[in-house]
């Protein structure tokens, strides 16, 4: 049942034009990496590691990941709400949590797929054959976790607000990108910080950005709590959801 709803959602969201834009966005760090590879001088011995971790922890985690999760996560269930197809899911003898889990699963797979282009592309160009290659699997796992957290948040937002995209944009660019970077205590409440913290915990590579991050254990614990609470909220909201007719 969950896989059926998830596969229909994958088709539904995957066909949208925004997916093409997201793939193009995901290719930007890959292109920047190519430029770096051809133009960089080999002055500093760990220059490529600093560059790769910089690109991954800033451009990918700060921009590609939240923006992909936002556009995909708000439409995974939001599209059903906007177009009225949610009736086909609600008017069924079906536990609501299955619908929510299916929607989160589909949104997560798509988001992770997009962000993985950035991570693997950047890693392949900058780090293959180099010392710091362990950054690539570390960030792959970290963005998988970050994608899950973001998608859970955006699915919940789409159930609560009809303008979830705008609210999500404000959250990503004001809270995640600005406030959480400048106020130290806030990083405990930031998916960006959890993501970088998890990446840090999975690699021995030491860089400026990773060293400043949250430790891996609190990152995993807080992210798990966020995912659990967000999913619980969405299940509750969908259980109470009413379809307003358009007179």
């Amino acid at each position: 049942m969950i896989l059926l709803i998830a596969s229909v959602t994958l088709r539904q969201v995957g066909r949208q034009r925004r997916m093409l834009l997201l793939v193009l966005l995901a290719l930007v760090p890959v292109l920047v990496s190519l430029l770096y590879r051809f133009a960089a001088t080999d002055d500093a011995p760990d220059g490529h590691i600093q560059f790769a971790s910089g690109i991954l922890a800033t451009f990918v985690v700060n921009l590609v990941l939240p923006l992909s999760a936002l556009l995909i996560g708000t439409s995974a269930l939001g599209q059903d709400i906007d177009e009225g197809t949610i009736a086909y899911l609600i008017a069924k003898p079906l536990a609501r949590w299955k619908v929510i889990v299916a929607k989160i699963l589909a949104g997560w797979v798509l988001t992770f797929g997009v962000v993985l282009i950035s991570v693997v592309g950047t890693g392949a160009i900058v780090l293959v054959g180099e010392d710091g290659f362990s950054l690539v699997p570390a960030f792959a796992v970290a963005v998988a976790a970050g994608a899950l957290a973001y998608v859970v948040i955006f699915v919940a937002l789409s159930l609560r607000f009809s303008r979830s995209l705008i609210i999500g944009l404000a959250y990503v660019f004001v809270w995640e990108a600005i406030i959480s970077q400048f106020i130290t205590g806030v990083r405990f409440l930031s998916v960006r910080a959890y993501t970088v913290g998890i990446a840090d915990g999975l690699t021995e590579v030491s860089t400026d950005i990773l060293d400043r991050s949250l430790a891996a254990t609190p990152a995993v614990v807080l992210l798990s709590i966020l995912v659990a609470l967000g999913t619980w909220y969405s299940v509750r909201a969908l259980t109470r959801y009413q379809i307003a007719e358009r007179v």
Partner: protein
Amino acid sequence: MTTDNSTNGATSGLGAAAPVIGLTEVSKWYGNVVAVNDVSFEIGPGITGLLGPNGAGKSTLLHMMGGLLRASSGSVSVLGEPAAGNPEVYRKVGIVLEREAVYGSLTGWDFVRMNAKLHGIPDADAATKQAIVRVDMEYAQDRLTGGYSKGMKQRIKIAAAIVHDPQVLILDEPFNGADPRQRLHMIDMLRAMAREGRTIVFSSHILEEMERLGDRVLVIVSGRLAASGDFRAIRRLMVDRPHTFRVASSDNRRFAQALVGDAAVTAVELEGGQLLVRTNDYGRFTLEAPRIAQSAGITVRELAPSDESLESVFEYLVAGVRGGAGENS
């Protein structure tokens, strides 16, 4: 105002057998706007139509019967169970909403099959085939529903709603966008389903659709139950109301004088070059007026009811509801 009869499945009073759908003192409001106002009725097997102008509250009522919307007060039950917050009820209930929404990236077959799977039907393929045959859509079942016409979407939606063989089928404006042939086919299909003992409730703002399908009619006006009964009783109620005719003749003044004497005429009014005649007896007046004109040697150029729109019929019923408020509640 209420025109019940004993054989009626839709009654505003208490029925003898347990009703399939029951509404008790149901109201629904959105902020300060009252969409449904203290409505009670029961619906039994067969076809029941909700008739009323756009915005009367028909959709709100159907959404509540389908458990998709909670009543602000009162209770709505389907097959003896509460309709809202009760997913299990959908094993026996199918719903077709007015919105055209279908999953455009699925073929008709996949769309209906998805609904069968979500219902947990063991042999989803057989159920899908049966439902698609029933709505006569085999020819388009392998095309994407996104490319369907409005009438085709409507039919595939019905197929999706009947794929689990529901005992109760709720349809909101099912004939919107259907061409006359599709409409006839749908009417035959719904009639056949009703003969199998199912309960079918549909809404429409078109009188002719009610006439063809609605054995029992609930007239909803301004969020209230204005009248209920079989279609003929409702029709009579609408025809027996006062009518105004617009008349143009060779001598309006003399015609007016001649008409005043007739029992069917309640008032005449000369307005500019026009003669307005009010009558309480539609049938008698339309028979008598030409005779009176003929005997007075007057040529009638035009004789037309001036308020035959459905809106005016509803206005009349609303006035009745206001006058006799509480009668149906």
